[in-house]
């Protein structure tokens, strides 16, 4: 049963990721990316990470994808048309390299041993919240500073030139 769920979600994820990379129009690419985000949320659910699946849906599928579509609508369409698709020569050069790297790392993953399990986590959201606000409190605060700096930077970059 687990393998069936894995097969369906992995097929969905790979098809949508390949579509996002190889499809011609940028809008279609973003829609394929949205599909891959949905399948990734399903994989997180099947792995028992409920909080992360919800955050994936909220942050990626709602905030980031909508932001991309908004930016594409502000750019004139005939200018986007000049640069769509991909470089064919780079694809033929890059795909064998990527395949070789995948075979090498996959061999290492298959032959190697994972670390032994340490403990059984109980309820996902409760455990995650407790660990986040005790052991990882300082990185959590730093993340808020990162978001603030990114917001100020985006405002500065998007300002109209005087």
């Amino acid at each position, binding site marked *: 049963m687990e393998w069936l769920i*894995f097969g369906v979600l992995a097929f969905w*994820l*790979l098809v949508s*990721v390949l579509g*996002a*990379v190889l499809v011609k129009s*940028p809008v279609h*690419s*973003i829609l394929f*990316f949205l599909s*891959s985000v949905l399948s*990734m949320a399903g*994989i997180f659910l099947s*792995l028992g*990470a409920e909080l*992360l699946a919800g*955050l*994936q849906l909220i*942050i*990626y599928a709602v905030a*980031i994808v909508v*932001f*991309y579509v908004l*930016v*594409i609508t502000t*750019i004139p369409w005939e200018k*986007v048309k000049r*640069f*769509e698709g*991909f*470089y064919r020569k*780079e694809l033929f050069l*890059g*795909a064998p390299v*990527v395949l070789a*790297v*995948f075979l090498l790392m*996959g061999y290492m*993953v*298959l032959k190697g041993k*994972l670390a032994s*399990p*340490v*403990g*059984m986590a109980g309820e*996902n959201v409760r*455990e995650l919240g407790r*660990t*986040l606000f005790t052991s*990882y409190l300082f*990185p959590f605060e730093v*993340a808020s500073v*990162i*978001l603030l700096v*990114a917001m100020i*930077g*985006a405002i500065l*970059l*998007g300002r109209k*030139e005087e």
Partner: protein
Amino acid sequence: MTLEKAYILLSLLVFLIGLLGVVIRKNLITILVSTEIMLNGVNLTLVTVDKYLGKVDGQIFALFILTVAAAEVAVGLGLIVSIFRLKGYEGSSEIVHLRD
């Protein structure tokens, strides 16, 4: 081959496809989409190993990766829009001012 290794192989493949997308795409916006795909692959590895080990630390790392992805999208799209407004193009083959 256990289920965890299959998930790790899947995340490797997703990451490498995103890397290929960064190399081959022409449009700057789709290059940013490919970097998001790479970040998703890393998230999948963290959550898988977390499930196997029975801890939650990797999910917290994935949470921070989500935060950084949101910040990266805001700044990156701002850069692309301002490049487009100042120079009037957005193809990855025309931005060569640092190389020349």
